[in-house]
């Protein structure tokens, strides 16, 4: 029986509270509408804060998605190992960079966590075809395993990749990225034809599939030749080779790295405690770098948001204090017709929160607009506003309203009804 009464009481009570709240919100909106310009100037800080939240979060998110997708396409098991000179604390050379083909083969032979390895030389070359010429074209000199390691294949029906025999013979053959064709102003008929690479004649065996650009780096402007051919062209690289390694699985990347280090340290005679004379570039390093960028962006965002919210909040506090003073008589009247302190407190708090939330909504609208406009740019990654950032922004703006609205609301609530009614 008592339970029924309690439930009944709550059912009666809740609509009243909601009704009172709704009335407060309407009152607040009327107040804002009456003082449009004042309200707008007040919430400018909130607008800026929320716009920054939405925009920066969306951009970071957009680039992050793009990054992750790209890395996944690259193959998450990929490592690049490169020679690196060891320098002392004062920058003096302790040990020159050194990596030979024998080192690479030794690594490949001794590491069971590594599936495939291919030597690689990174170079830039000049390509001529007909009357067209490209200078500074990215060149990779690798083995026939380049395709599976880099997850970067010759397009179906557009020729073939070079094989083990081509590598063995240091044949003057190459495969081209799609963008090279565009730059050479020719079509697929180039397959089987000859081009000049650094003034040497190379046969085009195939065309790589389109991979897209990444952080301004066009992956399709590339030429791949056998590494043996590369060594013939750039013999200086003989002692400064790098290599690609593909771990057995994503989980074994760390193990593979350890095996590489063990082999290379032994072969280079590095004693325990001495630094490696090579570097290992892993996918998660790219991710780490990106996370660093993300963190910087987030801290910048945090700064902007914090300052804007502070400014906005102080603005709200100020305008609410003015409002309380302006409406002292109204407060007196409300008290004389039965408003308790908490009713007045709630009314002015609601007003502050509605004010800041309106600012938040404007900011969200602006944020969406900025992301929309940015997405129109052809080189821009796709930017989507994540729903949680909207919730976060709204939460922040409402929280600011509560935090900075409490003092004016409290001031209104504790007014003595008689003094309030006498206020001129």
């Amino acid at each position, binding site marked *: 029986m008592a339970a029924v009464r309690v439930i009944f009481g709550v059912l009666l009570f809740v609509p009243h509270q909601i009704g009172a709240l709704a009335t407060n919100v309407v009152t607040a909106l009327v107040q804002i509408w009456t003082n449009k310009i004042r309200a707008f100037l007040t919430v400018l800080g909130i607008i800026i804060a929320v716009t920054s939240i939405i925009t920066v979060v969306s951009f970071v998110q957009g680039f992050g998605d793009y990054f992750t997708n790209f890395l996944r396409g690259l193959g998450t098991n990929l490592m690049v190992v490169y020679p690196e000179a060891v320098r002392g604390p004062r920058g003096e050379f302790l040990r020159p960079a050194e990596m030979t083909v024998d080192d690479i083969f030794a690594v490949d032979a001794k590491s069971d966590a590594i599936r495939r390895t291919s030597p690689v030389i990174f170079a830039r070359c000049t390509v001529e075809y007909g009357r067209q010429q490209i200078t500074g074209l990215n060149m990779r000199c690798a083995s026939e395993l380049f395709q599976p390691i880099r997850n970067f294949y010759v397009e179906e029906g557009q020729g073939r990749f070079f094989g083990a025999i081509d590598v063995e013979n240091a044949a003057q053959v190459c495969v081209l990225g799609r963008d090279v064709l565009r730059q050479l102003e020719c079509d697929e008929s180039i397959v089987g034809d000859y081009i000049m690479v650094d003034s040497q004649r190379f046969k085009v065996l195939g065309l790589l599939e389109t991979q897209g650009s990444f952080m301004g780096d066009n992956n399709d402007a590339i030429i791949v030749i056998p590494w043996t051919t590369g060594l013939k062209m750039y013999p200086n690289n003989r002692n400064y080779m790098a290599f690609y390694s593909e771990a057995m699985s994503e989980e074994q990347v760390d193990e593979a790295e350890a095996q590489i280090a063990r082999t290379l340290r032994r072969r280079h005679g590095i004693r325990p405690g001495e630094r490696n004379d090579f570097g290992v570039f892993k996918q998660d390093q790219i991710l780490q770098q990106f996370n660093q960028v993300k963190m910087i962006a987030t801290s910048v965002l945090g700064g902007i948001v914090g300052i804007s919210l502070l400014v906005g909040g102080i603005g709200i506090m100020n305008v609410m204090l003015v409002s309380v003073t302006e409406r002292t008589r109204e407060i007196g009247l409300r*008290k004389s017709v039965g408003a*308790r302190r908490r009713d007045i407190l709630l009314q002015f708090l609601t007003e502050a929160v509605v004010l800041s939330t309106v600012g938040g909504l404007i900011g969200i609208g602006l944020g969406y607009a900025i992301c929309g406009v940015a997405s129109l740019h052809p080189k821009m990654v796709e930017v989507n506003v994540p729903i949680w950032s909207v919730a976060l922004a709204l939460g922040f703006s409402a929280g600011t309203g509560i935090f900075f609205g409490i003092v004016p609301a409290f001031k209104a609530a504790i007014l003595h009804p008689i003094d309030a009614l006498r206020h001129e």
Partner: protein
Amino acid sequence: MIADSPISKTTAPLIELADLHKVYRVGTELVHALRGVSLLIGENEYVAIMGPSGSGKSTMMNIIGCLDVPTEGRYLLRGQDVSRMSQSRLARVRGRQIGFVFQSFELLPRTSALKNVELPLTYSGVRHRRKRAIEALRRVSLLDRAHHHPNQLSGGQKQRVAIARALAQEPDIILADEPTGNLDSTTGNEIMAIFDSLHAEGQTIIVVTHEDHVARRCRRTIKLMDGQIVLDQMNEERERAKGISTAEGAAAAATGGSEGTAATGGSRPHGTEGVRPDGKRGAATGTVIEEGGPS
């Protein structure tokens, strides 16, 4: 005082003030606004509280209206001691049992008459607010202005909205503080006519005023001076004055500035002068009190 209070024997005490004291601290000085006020007011009484500036009538009104609590003494409103209540409970009492009418109306701007009337009901959380507000507006014959905003209403209409707001809660007492103070005499009389008819319907009404013609329409007059009641009498003449055009009398009094000059200086017709039994006024206490400004 209570002993000779001319309270009607048929009415139960609605308000009981027992030896009220109110002391304010103004700077370092203590101001005794009320010095031992005792008073009984019954159901369906129609009381005027008069007194000059600083006589303590505002303080008394504030205490009766539960806007303030006495420093000493007891105030029973319908038997409940409100003199020691918390702020929150006082607010509740104000909301449910007392209807205020102010000199300057105190309507919420940019809010329709109907919403203004609904305001006390939202705080007490009663249901059928709209219906009750409409009913209250009907009682002051202002239903056709329900959706007008205060800036579209005349002074008299605003005060009628304020009365409707006071009525909406069906309060025990309507407490009017100089309700005609901001109105011209004709409109003021219209407002007093509304109070008259509400009283006839059984409403208890207390009017704080410094205008004689307003006080005269009430059944009982209480005069305060230096924080004490100096006069408390029934206005017997009111019965006889009923047939006379009070509006004209009031107009005369207002334009004339005082009772004495009204008869000769008034440009309008006047008729109530002769009916006023001046001799009776001072009878209860034998004190003659000069009129004061609004306090």
